[in-house]
Each structure stands twice: as C-alpha cells, then as structure tokens.
C-alpha cells in the first residue's frame, strides 16, 4: 500500500522514476555509504498505525492519561501562565499559510515579514522602545542574550543578577554565560524586591526582573538605572509584557535592554512549548549591533507607497558570518511572535489596561483570601499575578489540593508555594482555593 504521506512510493511511479534517471534501484544512490556503516536490519520501532483512525485511537489513549488545567482548577504559573487565549489567536496561528511556511523571501512570504514587523512594532509601543527582535526561543534565552549583549557592549564580563529569579532561569544563565562571564547574585530584600547592592566599574549590567519570581513588582528601577549608569553599566530588565498595560515600561525608568517571554500574550501553556523571547533596546547603533537575532525593517519598493520588508543589519548574524556573528541564530519562535501580535492588536491599549487591572485586583483578592489560613509573603508589596505562601509542608498541601481537583501552585521549596492568579480565575475559583486550603490546613 502506498503510504498517504509518500506519493512516489507508489511502485509504478517509483519504477518510472528510476528508469528516468537510469538507476536500477534506490540502493545505487547509497553507494557512497560504506557497508560497515549500513544498518543491516530494520529499525526496531513499534508497529505503526498507518490508518489515521488507529493513530487517533493510540494518541487519544495517551492523552486520556493527562488531566489538564481545564479539567483541574490550576494556580500554576512560575514562568508559564494561564491567560485567556482569544480564539482569533488560535485561528491565525493555525492557518496553513503561517503554520507550514518556512522563512522565505520577502516576496512570496511578505505576509510573514509584515506580521512579524507588526509584532515587533506593537511590542515597541508597549515597551516604548524602537528596536525589538524577531522572537528568540524563550525568555531564558532572551535574558542570557541580553546580558551577553550588555557585556559585549560594555566590553566587561561581570553581571549582577537579582536574586528574585527562578532557579531554572538561573541555571540557564549560569550555563549560557559561562565560561567567560561572572554571574553575581544580589540579595532579596524583606519586601520581596531586589535588595541593596553595591557596584563598581567592572560590571556590565544589573539584571532585574519585574514582576519578579515572587510576583513582586519592583519599584526601585529608576535608582538601579542611575546606579548602573553611574558605573558605565547597563540596566537590563526582564518584564512580562502582559503587565505593561498597567505597569510602567522599564524604558521609562531608564532600562537599556528589556527582555522577557511572550507566552502570556495569547499563547497556550502547551506543556511548556509556548515560549518565545523578546529583546528590546532603543535605536542606538552600537547596541543594535549586538543583537544576534533577526530584526525586520521596512524598505521601499519600486512602487511608491508599497512597504517591503527585510533584515536590518543582517551582517551581525551568524547566518552571515558564522562564528564571527553575535552568538547564533536559527529557527526560533516566529509563530508565537505573530500570535502575540494578534493578541496585542485585539487587546489594544484599553484591553491591556483592563487586563492589568483585573489581574492586579484578583491577585490582591487571592492574597487576602489566603491570608486567613496561611502566611502570605511580601504582603506589603505590589503583586502582579503571583505571590508566595508559607505552609508547614508544601508537598503535602499540594497533594491534598490535588485530591480536590486543584493544582494549588508551584512548590518553590519545602515550605513555600507560589500561587498564580490571572483573569482566567474567577472570584469563585479563588474562593474555592481558599476554602480548600483552609480545610487542608485545619485538618
């Protein structure tokens, strides 16, 4: 049987094609592969499900063994967030034209160039910055690259990183900045913000996150920018763009490079497969020169008034100059950039503001609701979407909640649970969590 995915496996066609090229069998094409490297048996793989229905059945059997966050009530966040995904986002990113395209020329793939140019442009408005990259892999990569950019720009090799950062991201930074860059960690203050630091002229950058790993909104950005700048260093801020309808954009308090993850902007959780990273700067040529990622820009065409698009300053990249380029560039996360653009266009300024206000209010509501039965950390700080609670036994609490159909949060350590609340959680949901926690704690 000719496989539905392989048209020329049909024996008649195959024979005719072989005849056309004058080969007696496909083996001839493999003549350069030495016998000792040839696999002399079939691969040992499971029997296939060639019939689509059989495959569906098999996959469904696997999926039935997951219980997702629509089936349970989930307060999991910590880098992957359950915001509402507008149906139009799904519609656009499932279009065959976008989903199955490569990354062709500015002509036959004009739509992709424009959609990504629009994405970076909307991000630029949200960030109040003029240069935003075509997405890199994820926020981890964006942070790592932003710090490498700062080091290349300042020609220094030490960075001061906020302690209020996730252990996973820190692991990435350590791996990615090694071996040539030293990473120092700043303390976390009692209010949950990045704590007191001292700086000298050896640092390339201060790296801040807001909201940080505890959901705390950093309010001393201006001070840190001034401190960094006084020492010839840059302020690098990682910020979730979904907060910027209500929170001040880091550029407004002096950040030089802003970066982060855009998964919040209309992309499903996807078991961690929905991430994409952004990096933004002002239009300052020496800093722009340090981007490894592709940047898209407008170019005129032969016809006045038409917008063409192309790569800005392509010769920075490893595509152009291999190891002489800035880090590397490859297939990253363009489709999520397009999706985030759709999201921002749907939301508009008012939607982003409304969303931010709802998240702020519900986060606070949840903190108050839980404060009765557990200790809420950093209560005095402004929280966006996340906050930490302290309990006697985090694992046990989460297990008891799971029995009640609730994913209560992410365990940060033996006694700390990080709780995430978005506009997807209704007041009823939060009350249900609070009641369950109280029940478990009092039991």
């Amino acid at each position: 049987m000719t496989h539905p995915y392989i048209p020329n496996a049909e024996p008649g066609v195959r024979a005719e094609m072989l005849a056309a090229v004058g080969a007696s069998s496909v083996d001839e094409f493999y003549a350069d592969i030495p016998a000792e490297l040839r696999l002399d048996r079939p691969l040992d793989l499971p029997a296939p499900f060639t019939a689509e229905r059989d495959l569906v059945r098999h996959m469904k059997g696997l999926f039935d063994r997951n219980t997702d966050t629509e089936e349970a009530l989930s307060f999991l966040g910590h880098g992957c967030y359950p915001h509402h995904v507008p149906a139009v986002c799904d519609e656009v990113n499932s279009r065959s034209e976008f989903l199955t395209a490569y990354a062709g020329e500015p002509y036959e793939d004009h739509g992709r160039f424009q959609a990504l140019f629009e994405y970076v442009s909307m991000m630029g408005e949200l960030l109040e910055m003029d240069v935003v990259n075509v997405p890199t892999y994820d926020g981890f990569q964006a942070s790592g690259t932003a710090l490498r950019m700062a080091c290349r720009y300042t020609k220094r090799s030490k960075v001061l990183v906020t302690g209020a950062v996730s252990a996973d991201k820190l692991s990435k930074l350590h791996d990615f900045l090694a071996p040539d860059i030293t990473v120092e960690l700043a303390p976390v203050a009692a209010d949950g913000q990045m704590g007191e630091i001292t700086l000298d002229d050896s640092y390339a950058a201060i790296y801040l996150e807001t909201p940080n790993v505890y959901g705390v909104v950093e309010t001393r950005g201006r001070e840190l920018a001034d401190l960094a700048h006084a020492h010839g260093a840059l302020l690098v801020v990682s910020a979730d763009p979904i907060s910027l309808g209500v929170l001040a954009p880091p550029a407004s308090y002096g950040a030089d490079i802003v970066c982060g993850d855009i998964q919040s902007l209309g992309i499903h959780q996807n078991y961690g497969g929905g991430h994409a990273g952004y990096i933004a700067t002002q239009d300052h040529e020496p800093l722009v020169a340090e981007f490894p990622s592709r940047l898209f820009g407008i170019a005129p065409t032969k016809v006045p008034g038409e917008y063409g698009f192309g790569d800005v300053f392509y010769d920075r990249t490893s595509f152009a100059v291999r190891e002489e380029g800035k880090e590397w560039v490859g297939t990253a996360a363009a489709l999520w950039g397009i999706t985030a653009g759709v999201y921002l266009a749907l939301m508009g300024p008012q939607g982003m503001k409304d969303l931010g206000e709802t998240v702020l209010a519900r986060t606070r509501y949840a903190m108050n609701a839980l404060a009765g039965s557990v200790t809420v950390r950093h209560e005095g700080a402004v929280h966006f979407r996340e906050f930490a609670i302290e309990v006697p036994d985090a694992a046990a609490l989460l297990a008891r909640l799971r029995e009640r159909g609730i994913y209560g949060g992410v365990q940060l350590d033996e006694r700390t649970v990080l709780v995430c609340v978005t506009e997807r959680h209704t007041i009823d949901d939060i009350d249900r969590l609070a009641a369950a926690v109280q029940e478990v704690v009092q039991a």
Partner: protein
Amino acid sequence: WDEPIIFELSSPGRRGMAVPEPGAEKVELPAGVGRATPPALPEMSQLHVLRHYLRLSQENLGVDLNIDVGQGTCTMKYSPKVNDQFANAIAELHPLQHEETVQGVLEIYWRMERMLAEISGMSRVSLQPGSGSAAIYANIAMIRAYHAARGEGHRDQVITTMFSHPSNAACAKTAGYEVITLMPDANGLPDLEALRAAVGPRTAALMITNPEDTGIYNSRIKEFVDLVHEVGGLACYDQANANGILGITRARDAGFDLCHFNLHKTFSTPHACGGPAAGACGVSPDLEPFLPGPVVSFDGSSYGLETPAQTVGKIRPFLGVTPNIVRAYAWIMALGAEGLREVAETAVLNNNYLMHKVLQIPGASAPWDQRRIEQVRYSWQELSEETGVHSEEIGVRAADFGVHYWTSHHPYLVPEPFTLEPTESYSREDLDEYAAILEHVASEARRDPEFVKGAPYNQTIHKIDPTPLDDPKQWAPTWRAYVRKHLSAGG
C-alpha cells in the same frame, strides 16, 4: 490585496476583545509604578483584526500551498494535519503539573526518546532544545562539561566544516571555543588531511554534518571520527537533516559520541514561519550524565522526571517544545520502521530524479561530480555569466509562478547557488512542474535578463530597495522608528 500596516487601521475607542471585570477591589499603584501613558497599540474591532491577519496569511506561502522543494537544507515536508490536532490536545497542560497528572505526555516523551535512540544508535536522548541550533548548543555545552569533569578544561578548540550549518561554528564560539573550519577538498568533501593537521591536545570536538549541504555523502566519515577520538576529542554529528538516511545508517554506528536531530526537518513538524521548532540531542553512555535536565524516567509502571547527575542545566524552560514532540512522535508512529525507510529512499529517489531534470536545463550545474543523497547545491554560474542574472533573481522570478527558492545558502562557496531538496512529500508531477518553471525562468533570463532582474511581477509587492536596511539613519526596525525617521514632520 496589499494590506496596510496594522497601525494604519486603528481608530480610537475600538477594541477587539473585552476582559473580565475585576470583581474585586481595584489596586491603586504607588506613584511611578503605574504606566503614565497608554501604549499606542492599534484600536480595532475583532473582525478587523482577524481580516487583517487572514489577508496577511494569504500573502504567505506554506508547504501546504506550494511545491516547497526550494528551501534546500530545510526539509520542507508534509506535516500531517492530524498531528496538529494532537498538538492541540496538550494546549492546556501546565509544565509544572505533578507527574501523576501528566502520565500521557511523559509517556510520549519517553517513547519518543527510545525511538530516536534506536534511529541514531545512541543510548539516551534529550528533547529539551528548542531547535536544531539550540541542540547544537546543548551538545557543545555537554562537550564542555564532559571535558571539564575529566579535568581536561584546557581543550579549547572545536573543529567544524565549511558546509556544516553556521550554528556549529557560532554555538561553539558562543560557548567560548576557538573554531577551526575545514574547507572542502576538490571533491566537495571535508578534507581529511586538513583535519589531521588540525587535531591535537586542544581539540574538544569535531562538529560535522554528513551529507553536508552539498548533498554528498562523506564515505570516510568514520576516519574523521577515529582521528578525533585518537586525540581525546569527541565527535558530534549534526543530523539536523537525517531524512535521506533514516534506517540506512546511524550516527553511533560511525562512532559518534553525540548527535542531534531537527524535529522540524526530518520528523515533519511544521516550520511555522521560523519556529517554534524542536531539537533532540542523542548521546553515547559516556555523555549521559551531562544531559540537560530534566529527562523522563520510567520505572516500569509510571513515568517521572529526573535530573542527570552532572547536567549542564537548563537549555530552555521546562521539558521541551511539547507540541512538536507530540507531532513528531505521531509522525513516526504513522510510519514505523518500514515507513521511515520508505521516506528515506523516496526522498533520495526524488532528489536524484529532480537532479536529473535540473541538469538538463542549460546553464544549471551541480558542482563536483558526485552522487547525491537528499539534496543538491546547484549553481547557475554558467547562466549568470551568460546573462548577468543572479541566482537570487531567478528564485524571485520563480515566485511569480507560485514556487520559489531560498538563497541564504551560507557559506557562499558555490557561485550563484540554489539548493533544492524535494523530500518524500512531493509527487513526480510536482518535481516535473518545478523543473519546468526553472527552465522557463532560465530561458526568460536568456531572452530578457532585465525582465527577470525586475521581478517579482505578481507578488504582493514589487522589487525591494534594500538600502535603508543597513543604514542606521534610515533603518526602521519598528513602526515607531519608521514614523520618527520617515513620517514625522522633521523626518
């Protein structure tokens, strides 16, 4: 249609999406913490946002719409639609759910890892990297950690070849290595003598592709590997594209210590305009402790997560690009061992058939008189010398016929290059049509070179003047930069 830029469609007060009311007391932000002025995002009704993006989508050309054999090295094959349905089935899974609530997805990771181990001959596989390049980086990180753990941190050179993907060089450099690049010999193959000259006590690893982007299989690959092993280095196989040799020959059988696959090439996940993709790193037993974490474990009854003892740490957040792992898994499961071999053989047959057709076009050639596996880097040098029309211009003109080819064929060693890779997905009729279009454009180039150089003619836009893209005074990487530099009164 040629859609306007989205900002030009905005009208104050409109919106595409309403948001739930807080239902709780509003939080007042301290001075300076709140945003002072609203972002100048577009204000549009929902239909208008949708219409804009649907029109843009129609200005784009996916595999599903065209004979996409012109993205050589990119392996643009059919990504079955049913696999998209599977990918959507995990949309609402959070990556930090407790293991007991994600047994299905963990099993997919586990089974996928085992299948890729069998396909590569390696002992373990990490599915964490977000792409092929990220997988290359992860392999380099493991190489670095491996040598460091053995007290051989002094090894500071990575050797690669000119026709390997630039990420091999660039990732090695990023990880702090000096990069040595082997140039091809007279046969278009990496030069064994050059390698012999390059290896030594400073050698950390060889990063090599086979077949390289030329499409020529390097018969002496095991000698390359052995040479590196002799000096204590590791051999790492860039198998981004393994499409032509699935079930034919395996990385480990040639002695490699590490390899990687691009799931969006060989294993059919869609390219999505440039990602998300997914990569897979396969390693031999010696490298297992250094794998990025976590990896999936199986105790015979249930699946869990574990972190390798000497892990290099996180390459990206969480476990991997799960939607693509799911798609690639389903693709292999639809084919099985026999199907994968049929994929490879058909891809190679298609490539040789297309080569046969292309080489009949006057002005086209395939440098080096060698057999080809899955793709061919061709050259229009002859045509270009005759007509002054460059390869890139021919590709653009071909777009007027609903196909195209991509010319970012780093490195630019082959003059006037074009790389075609027909994969197993296209029919003989498709290949005939593609060759006929190239032939037509080549004859146009002879008849009227200026016409071809002026292309495109029936695309959304006309020929671009790229000058502003490299001029800091003129470039406009966002609309706000464009407005400032080109539209403002003073601009």
